[in-house]
């Protein structure tokens, strides 16, 4: 029977041969009765080589494949309903997956099995990739940080049914996936209609254009009041995905931030307002010397509007000049930035305003500290016109007082001189002695008045203008010593010049002031020497930029505990007050002020009962040659004999 069928089939060789898919005709043992030419395409074996052999007994099949094929043949012959199976095979050294369809063909009670093979390797690989990619997307969808919900439009987009809902969505919406899938959005989110979200979903579903649904408040019983933000996309499937985030915390944080930044801004505004309303001019520069803050008073004084000044280098807006020489005062801000120390102005500073008018000002500058030293500087300046007026009045008063006090003293002085010189007839010796006492007292009075006036001038910032000119210091020393002969005689001391002193030493200085310095120092040294003591006036060139002068005595000295008070006004040391009644306690104060005004330094070394050395410096500076003025100098305090 089978033979007959085979014969029949052999007759149908052309059918087999031309069958479009690889086909084997098998008996119930799996023996190949016939094969179509196409099998070569799948197995690489010519059809005729397969005929007569059990098709699955071949090394290309794995053990499990062999069993599966054997079972397929058996099941097919047993009349069971069989599905196509995939088997693994190694064809041409490569792994392949072959799909096998079987179909039993009955013919006159005889049956043969038709088995069609298909190489589905690529298809399966593709399936696998697809599956993997789907899995990947699933994972991604499931594990993405933001919530994602997939909706399917129903009732032509009137409502939407949830078809998927990821983990993050479940967490943030406090609801399980199984409770939402298949549910309309309006049921899951009862408050959704108010938000306009449904409309957005509808739009995306209709147009296919993705949309950003901006932060919106959503409220329902389950969730309370929350902030949402969504991105809505349409999938190729026609579904709509909403990727969303509960941004309540973020909004709250940003509100807090906004509030705190408003608080800061409020504070800043408050400080700014305070700075703005300060009656003194205030400006702040950054490290490039550009103005970053400029208050109203600064604007008023300078004539520049705040907005004109901001961001400009400060010296383009605020021109500070020195009163006496019109030289620009610019270094102070630089100095503050470089040293990190605060500075106050010297007197005599003028602010030149926008119109070129000059306003007397006092300023102070302080560094603004940054992480790496000063990051800027704050400068406060104020109009001192009124103070100047008061100063001027004081100066005028001093001037008048000077004049008025000196006038009677001069009268006494001159008539005593006339008397003592016998212009009114010979004077008996005892009377002469008394008159000389009167004369000495009057002289002290004149010095005292002059000292008081000097102090007053120093303090009122009166024009202690220094007319610096080439000055022979040695000549001044000689003149002062010469002018002090009476005093030297009175105290029975010797004043000597250091042997190394040159005959001439020209420095740039104000001769009157230097004379006053030497006069005060030498007369102090003389007065506070012990009888038959020695006073030495000398100099040295130890310092690079200045010449040091000193006046040394071997007298009473200054007690150590009082030494810090030496340059105080009216200070006189305890140990000499009783011994020497002469002295105002103003001399060293004046000396110090004059020396410092010259740009020099002042110091002293003193040991009680050993003596005192007072030193000061005069900067070397540049000595400009100038025609000597005819002006003859007056002796500062001393008498010219």
């Amino acid at each position, binding site marked *: 029977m089978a033979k007959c069928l085979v014969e029949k089939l052999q007759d149908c060789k052309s059918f087999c041969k031309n069958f479009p898919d690889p086909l084997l005709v098998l008996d119930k043992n799996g023996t190949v009765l016939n094969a179509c030419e196409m099998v070569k395409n799948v197995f690489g074996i010519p059809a005729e080589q397969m005929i007569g052999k059990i098709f699955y007994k071949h090394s290309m099949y794995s053990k499990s494949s062999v069993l599966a094929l054997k079972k397929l043949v058996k099941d097919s012959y047993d009349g069971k309903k069989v599905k196509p199976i995939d088997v693994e095979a190694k064809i041409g050294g490569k792994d392949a997956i072959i799909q096998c369809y079987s179909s039993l063909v009955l013919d006159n009670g005889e049956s043969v099995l038709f088995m069609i093979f298909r190489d589905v390797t690529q298809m399966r690989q593709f399936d696998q990739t697809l599956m993997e990619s789907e899995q990947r997307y699933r994972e991604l969808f499931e594990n993405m940080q933001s919530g994602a919900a997939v909706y399917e439009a129903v009732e032509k987009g009137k409502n939407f049914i949830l078809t998927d809902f990821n983990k993050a969505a479940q967490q943030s919406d406090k609801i399980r996936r199984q409770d939402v899938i298949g549910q309309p959005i309006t049921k899951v989110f009862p408050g959704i209609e108010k938000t306009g979200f449904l409309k957005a979903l509808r739009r995306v579903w209709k147009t296919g254009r993705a949309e950003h649904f901006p932060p919106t408040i959503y409220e329902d019983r389950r969730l309370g009041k929350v902030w949402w933000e969504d991105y809505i996309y349409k999938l190729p499937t026609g579904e709509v995905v909403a990727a969303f985030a509960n941004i309540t915390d973020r909004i709250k944080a940003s509100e807090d931030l906004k509030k705190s930044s408003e608080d800061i801004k409020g504070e800043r505004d408050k400080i700014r307002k305070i700075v703005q309303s300060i009656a003194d001019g205030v400006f702040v520069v950054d490290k490039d010397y550009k103005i970053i803050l400029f208050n109203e008073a600064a604007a008023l004084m300078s004539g520049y509007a705040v907005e004109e000044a901001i961001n400009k280098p400060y010296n383009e807006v605020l021109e500070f000049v020195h009163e006496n020489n019109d030289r620009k005062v610019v270094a102070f801000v630089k100095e503050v930035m470089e040293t990190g120390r605060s500075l106050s102005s010297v007197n005599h500073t003028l602010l030149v305003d926008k119109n070129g008018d000059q306003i007397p000002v006092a300023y102070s500058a302080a560094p603004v500290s940054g992480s790496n030293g000063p990051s800027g500087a704050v400068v406060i300046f104020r109009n001192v016109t009124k103070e100047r007026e008061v100063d001027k009045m004081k100066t005028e008063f001093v*001037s008048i007082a000077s004049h008025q006090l*000196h006038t009677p003293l*001069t009268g006494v002085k001159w008539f005593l001189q006339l008397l003592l010189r016998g212009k009114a007839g010979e004077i008996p010796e005892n009377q002469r002695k008394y008159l000389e006492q009167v004369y000495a007292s009057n002289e002290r009075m004149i010095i005292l008045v002059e000292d008081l006036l000097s102090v007053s001038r120093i303090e009122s910032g009166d024009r202690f203008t220094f007319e610096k000119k080439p000055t022979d210091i040695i000549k001044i020393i000689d003149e002062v010593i010469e002018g002090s002969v009476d005093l030297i005689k009175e105290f029975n001391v010797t004043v000597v010049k250091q042997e190394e002193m040159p005959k001439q030493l020209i420095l740039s200085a104000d001769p009157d002031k230097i004379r006053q310095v030497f006069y005060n120092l030498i007369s102090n040294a003389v007065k506070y020497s012990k009888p038959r003591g020695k006073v030495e006036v000398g100099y040295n060139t130890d310092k690079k930029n200045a010449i040091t002068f000193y006046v040394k005595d071997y007298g009473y000295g200054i007690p150590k505990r009082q030494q810090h008070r030496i340059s105080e006004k009216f200070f006189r040391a305890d140990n000499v007050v009783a011994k020497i009644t002469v002295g105002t306690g103003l001399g060293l104060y004046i000396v110090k002020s004059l020396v410092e005004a010259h740009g020099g330094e002042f110091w002293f070394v003193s040991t009680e009962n050993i003596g005192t050395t007072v030193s000061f410096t005069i900067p070397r500076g540049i000595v400009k040659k100038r025609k000597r003025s005819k002006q003859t100098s*007056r002796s500062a305090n001393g008498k010219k004999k």
Partner: protein
Amino acid sequence: MAKKKVLVIEDDRIMLEAIRIELEDAGYDVILYEDGKNGLKAALEGAADLIILDLVLPQLHGFDVLAALKSAKEVKVRKIPVIILTNLTQEADREKGMKLGAIDYCVKATMDLQGLKNKVKDILSKK
């Protein structure tokens, strides 16, 4: 030889008297004025070889007197040496006086009468 004339413009009579005594003793013809206006008038009339000028004066301030003298028409007047003798001790005043053309600026309180006499002598001997 005729006596040299020293014109003293000084409002304080005590000082005026002291200067007069000192200078007359030294052989000068001393002319005294107690206010700036009359002093200037006398000076412009060429009444002096030397002028001792106070600054704080009634009617006309010493600086004005000096300025007027130094801008006088007559060269002779302009050339009269003027010693300022004052008790104004401020630098500004000294500067101003010298700038206006004074030959010297002396502070009375620190000036001896003899010193003043010597100055007058020096200046007039150079003339």
